[in-house]
């Protein structure tokens, strides 16, 4: 398949854009890659900015609206800036039964943010998430998609301190 993407005005690094354009050109139905491309561009910007939506659309020969429809649909695509560490707190029924609420209250208090917010130093974002498939380790959370559980307040404190120290 021919690729007509103009690489001269790329906001994202030329190498990344070329890599994506090559992947897209290599498959029969480019739209099958839209989630992969959104992830790749999001990894670069930190979130899927308005510009990024347009870049993805251009790469895949879609309209920005078509990409927007997907970007706002999926849990792991962020249309607003997020922190260095995105904490997804599972609030489905098993984690709920095993103490999700006290875990969330603690996180919220310790970080000084509510669900949907990011700490002012840009370190942590707090988001709710549906059952992450770790009910055998409830209550569980994800930090940058890595799972932690079963959690207690103490363990959670240790994890946060470690992440702060590493940053």
């Amino acid at each position: 398949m021919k690729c007509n993407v103009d690489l001269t005005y790329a906001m994202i690094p030329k190498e990344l854009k070329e890599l994506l354009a090559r992947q897209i050109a290599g498959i029969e139905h480019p739209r099958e890659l839209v989630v992969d491309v959104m992830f790749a561009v999001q990894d670069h910007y930190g979130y899927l900015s308005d510009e990024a939506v347009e870049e993805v659309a251009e790469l895949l020969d879609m309209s920005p609206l078509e990409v927007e429809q997907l970007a706002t649909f999926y849990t792991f695509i962020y249309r607003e800036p997020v922190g260095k560490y995105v904490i997804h707190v599972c609030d489905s029924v098993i984690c709920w039964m095993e103490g999700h609420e006290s875990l969330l209250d603690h996180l919220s208090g310790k970080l000084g943010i509510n669900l949907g917010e990011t700490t002012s130093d840009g370190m942590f974002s707090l988001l709710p998430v549906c059952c992450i498939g770790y009910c055998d380790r409830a209550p569980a959370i994800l930090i940058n998609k890595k799972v932690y559980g079963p959690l207690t307040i103490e363990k959670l404190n240790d994890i946060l301190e470690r992440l702060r120290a590493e940053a």
Partner: protein
Amino acid sequence: MMNYPQVLFKNRKPDRIATLEEYRQSGGYEGLGDALSKASHKDVQQVLLDAVLLGRGGAAFPAGRKLMTVADDAPHPRYIVCNADEMEPGTFKDRVLIHADPHMLIEGMIIAGYGAQAEKGIIFIRPEYESAARILEREIKIAKEAGYLGKNILGNGYSLDIVVHRSAGRYICGEVTAQLNALMGKRANPQQPPPYPTEKGLWERPTVLQNVETLACMPHILRNGPEWFKNLALTETGAGTKIFCASGKINSPGCYELPMGIRLSEIIEVHAGGMVEGSEYKACLPGGASTRFLPREFYDIEMDFDTLRNVGHRLGTGAIMVFDQKTCLVAATLNLVEFFARESCGWCTPCREGLPYIRDLLRRLEEGEGEEEYIPMLQQMSKHLWSSYCAFAPGAVSPVESLITYFEDEVREHISQKKCPFK
């Protein structure tokens, strides 16, 4: 403790996946070799049908029958899609299976692909399972180098390639037609058949979609025969083993491969370590959030698709979530409905509008602001949700309907005491 045969978990290890070599030593890829060299794709369909292999993703549709619905003269390329989106609350068997023995899934996909005469295989996987996605990508490559994938598999003329497709996470993507839309880069709204995906699925081509566990059963059926598979079950009506994911108020939450038809009481008391101290069994959801509460009177029920169906219940995914006498089931149901209201794709009116309505009534009940009339209102709205576009909404109201069927007294206590009696 009874030691039941381990079929899907026979190579399961505590800390790592089984390698291709280990899988082969346990009989892996023998079923595929036999099928490709000695059987037609029609024979494969028939063997799976005779084995009564029912879909393990929740819908219990016969896997052989599904392959048979691909017409002989249907166009190519055809697709075999593995649904590894596993987002049903309480369910984590596919994750455990992939981390235990990925080649079992790969072989199952090749067998199903051969049964459908498909050229393209896709594994659709949720973003929370990134480690499983990486394992699969690596092992697919290894399988290809060993001649099990790619062109002219094992020299028998059949060709199939498999790719891993990462999702960005939404529950509705587990629904067949929604998943196909997601794969095609569209918003994952379900589509009402006809046409059925096996006629016109991905890119208008015949597409067969199967759950991870269903596919993992196939190599064993091909190798050992349908009668062997049926005899694994403890009941006449059941067939095979089932991976039960147990969670909630039990001592040993986890995945247990047990014969289909095993009693619920045995799963809980013997295999899942019994109820935690101070807890008594009150109810469970036997197969994920989209199934009905199973109260104490069914504690000894034989867990297979037919037995549960005969008493008005569903086995679903076999994800058993156990609730004890100290847990408020109004609050639990509210949590479940919150999940469904958030995850509804919003495409059709009953689901989009009905679930927030039900959530609001349950929230008021839980907060002690409930009225007598809320009970018939919940029942009526639940009934409306059965007229929605896909199976999402009927599943979503299953806990609500069964709450009122079996625990109406508990709901009424919330109204008469003007508070949650558990607080």
